[in-house]
Every structure is written in C-alpha cells, then in structure tokens.
C-alpha cells in the first residue's frame, strides 16, 4: 500500500535531483529542466497531501503551479533565445560579462 510518506519521499528525491541538477549542470536548457523537476516534486507533494486530507485545496494549488510553470518555461526559453542570438552559446559558464 502506498501511503503519503512514500510519496513525500519520492517528492523529496525529485526535488533533490532537480536542485543538484540546477547547481551542477552547465547547459542552460538542462538547468531549466531541473527547475521543472523541482516544481513537479512540489506538485507531487501537494497532490499526495490533498489525497490524504480529502480536500481539493492541494489539487487546486497544483493546477496553479502547473499553469505558472508553463508561463515560466515560455519566458525562460524566450530569454534563452535572446541570449543565444547574441552570444551563440547556451552554456552557463559563458554568461560572465557581469561580475562583482
């Protein structure tokens, strides 16, 4: 039987993988994907708790998170393309004009 603790553990694992990916990977698109992974961990948590409490709040919250994540992905890719047109790179190490 799957109980909320299992789902929370899965959520925590996803969140940590996303966070590690964000911190370690150098390709900007992979970094985006890592952020999406973190958001999905949140959604999993919310839906699991929602099921546990038998209340719709968590699911509504999850729907909002999915919607905003879509808007954020669109924004992020637009910014990425703008950056790519100038620097011809999608590598986080290349973005170093501004520092200190």
């Amino acid at each position: 039987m799957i109980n909320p603790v299992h789902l929370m553990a899965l959520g925590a694992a996803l969140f940590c993988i996303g966070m590690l990916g964000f911190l370690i990977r150098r390709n900007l698109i992979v970094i985006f994907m890592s952020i999406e992974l973190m958001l999905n961990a949140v959604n999993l948590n919310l839906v699991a708790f929602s099921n546990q409490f038998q209340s719709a709040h968590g699911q509504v919250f999850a729907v909002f998170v999915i919607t905003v994540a879509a808007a954020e992905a669109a924004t992020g890719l637009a910014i990425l393309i703008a950056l790519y047109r100038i620097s011809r790179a999608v590598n986080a190490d290349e973005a170093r004009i501004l520092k200190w």
Partner: protein
Amino acid sequence: MELPVVDFTAVYPEVVVTLVGLLVLAVDVFLKPERKTVLAVIALLGLFLALLVTLAYYPLDEVAFSGMVAADSFSQFFKLIFILSAAFSILMSPRYLQIFNINAGEYYELIMFCTLGMMVMVAGNDLVTIYIGLELMAISIYLMAGFQRDNPRSSEASMKYFLLGSFASAILLYGMSFFYGITGKTNLEEIARYLDFTQNMLNTKLITLSLVLMTVAFAFKIAAVPFHMWTPDVYEGAPTPLTAFMSVGPKVAAFAVILRVYMTTFHTLVPDWTQLFWILSVLTMVVGNVIAVAQQNIKRMLAYSSISHAGYLLIGVISAGTATEIKINGLPATSLVSESMMSVMVYLFAYMFMNLGAFAVVIALAKAGNPRELLQDYAGLARRKPFTAMLMTILLLSLLGFPGTFGFIGKFYIFKAAITTGNVTIAVIGVIMSVVAAFYYIRVIVYMYMREPEGEILPEADFASSTMYAVITTTVFTLLFGVAPGFIIAMARYSIEQMLA
C-alpha cells in the same frame, strides 16, 4: 452547491491596473514607433486613477473571494508604495528609451502587470494568492531586465535573474507544500489557527524545514546575503528605469508578505525565524556595505546599497518578532509589536522615494552611446549641473540617514524599535555599518563637488524634462516627509493595529 460571493470593492485598484495594462497593450498596436510616449501618458493616468481609487476606499477591512484576498489598510498602504514607484519609473522611462532606442510598447504594459502582481501579493491571504502574485511580479521583471535585446549585458542579467528567481520560487513552493501537508489548509488565518491549537503535538522538524525553505525564498526576493548574488548583476545589466523599479517594488512586496505571514501566521514560531533573520540581517549589512565601498559603477554601488538596506529592514522585522514574546506586567506588549512593524513600513516608504530618486539622477545624466554610470563621470558635476548635483546630494544623504531627510526617520524608528525590544547587539552592528555606508555615499558627493572632471569634457545632455520631474518630486517628498512624517506614521500604525486586532 453555493457559489462564492464576488466582491469587487476589495480589488478595485487591481482591476484598474489590469484594465489599463490591457489598454496599453491594445493601443500599442496602433502607434508608430516614434509615438510610444503616448503609452507612458496612458499608463501614468491609469496609475493616478488607481491611486485615487485606493485612497477613496481607505480604510478597508475585509476578506474577499472566499478568504483568498485580504483588502485591509495594510495592503492599501503597500499598494500606494507600488503605484507611486511604478509611476516614478514610468516618468523616468521616455528619455532612457529614446536614448537607447528601445521602441516597444510592452515596456509599459510589463510595468503595469508587475505592479498588479505586487498588489495581489500584498493582498494575498492565502498561500496560492501570494504565489500567483509573486510569480506575476517575477515573470514581468525577468522580461523587463532583458529589454535591451541587442545588449549582451541586458540579456545576461535577465537570464541570471530568471534562473535564480525560478529556483527561489521552487524552494518557496516546496516550503508551502509542507505547510499544506502539516495543516491541510492554504489560508493564512486557518494555518495560524491550526498552529496555535496544536502547538505541541506537531512534527516540529517538518515545520522548521518548511519555515527555512520559505525564509530562503523570501531572502532571495529581498536580496539578503547570502542570497544576493543576482542583485548587482541584474541591477547593472537591466535598463536603468527598470533597475530603479525592481530595486524598490519586489523588495517592498517581499517585506510586506514577510510582515503579514511571519507576524500573523507564524507568530507561534517566532524564536525560530528571528534566529534565521538575525543571521541574514547581520550578513546582509556587513557584506552589502563593505562590498559597496569597492564599487566604481554607480548602478552597482546602488545595488549593494539596496542590499544593505534589506539588512536594516530585517532589524525591524526581528524587533517585531521579539516584541511578541515580551510581556509587560504579564500582558503582551502590543504597542512594541506595532511600533516595530511600523518602523519597517515607514522605512520602506522612505526607501522608495530616495532609491527611485537616486536612479532617476543616473538616468538624467545618461547620454546616447554613453550611459555615464561610472564614478568618474560624476566628477565636477556640481559645476556643470549644480541643480542636479544638489538633488543627488539630498537623495544620497537620505539614503545615508542624514537628519532632516526621510531616510533618517526610517533609520531612527528601526533602531529605536531594536533597542526598546532588547536587540541591542544588532542595533549596534547596524549603526556601525551605517558609518561604513557614509563612506561610499559621501564619496559620490565629494566627486560631484570637489573633483575636476577627468578626460575630455563632453557637452552636457539637454534638460531631461520628465526624468527631472521624477528626480524633483522624489527629492521634495524625501525632504517633506523628513520634516513631517506624521501622516505616513499614522497610516502605518493604524493599518498594523487593524491587522493584529
């Protein structure tokens, strides 16, 4: 099934800002690139209308939309700050856009929607509302930071802000999901009630974890050290009017949410979060002020100065937290709590005027092909442009906290709150760091008044009318409220009493 009651009186300012934002977007289609200034006029009129609507319904005290939105005088106070900061930023924009050849109407529309996001955020009485407001604000700002698409600096700033901002909001959400998991509620009042009743029976480790996650995310938004890395880069790379806007708006909104959430919902967790904020505050003041000393670029210097201001503001938040635990003759010291919260609100109001003013001066001096943001560009300014130099001096002295300016009033109440609530150590650190701050603010004044201009002397830019209006108005308000702050203080006090009642 009963449908929820829709009460629009609670959100009239938001409705006005939304409609004007959409109007700007629609009118933009019909305008030639050289006539985009019309949009600035529409946006300004719309913001003026929103200001009037906010004031007309002052003071409100209601919870609308099934408990999602709290339309109280606390949120109205902050809505005034957002509307004014958006209006000043728009006032500074036309000249900058003209010089740097940015002809896109979305510019004004994004400012309007960012303002809307901030307004929703402070009126949020539910974790969902706060999150939606925060994201609307943040997404608009990611785009605004990258508005000069042909400039690699701008794109890079936008990218950095986007990545770190969405990372922070993922962390915030993870913390929120745990609060939902613990309490089964997303409404702030219901969470507070749950935490009050079940104080000793809950999984305290999980609560602490989620509190830390949410605090980290808010620390990102207020640019507290060690979560400040994006600030100088983004402030330097973004177009200056937007730097001015984003140095004020998101920070003020995040502080408003911190005050509301931490003081009303998490008030049973005070010992935990005051510790967190204590560390953040000290680090922020020390690192912000010390690194600002080394800066040669004025925008970067103002970025570090805005980081250090977050540190001072956190002192007020900590005082408010500790005040809830102080008992005088066995009774809770409510006046100490409201005085401490008031100090933060007054400081934020002061910060808005003086920071926007300082950035407006940077814009007023910019010229085509030469943004003139370096310290040596200010050498001998007093001789060439005595009036601008004088205004800049007043604004910098206010940022420093010089008596007679609004900045002094803010700092005075913050430190007073810290001392009356027994947070003497952090008050002393704050005062010492203000002395360090004196070095870099006064250095600009020294450059303006006592240095000869270096290199070839370029002919001065012509009188930048709308930008100068912004500079003059902010300076006048800085001085006016520096002498007579009673109005703002009374408003802040009233709204806190209403919220805590």
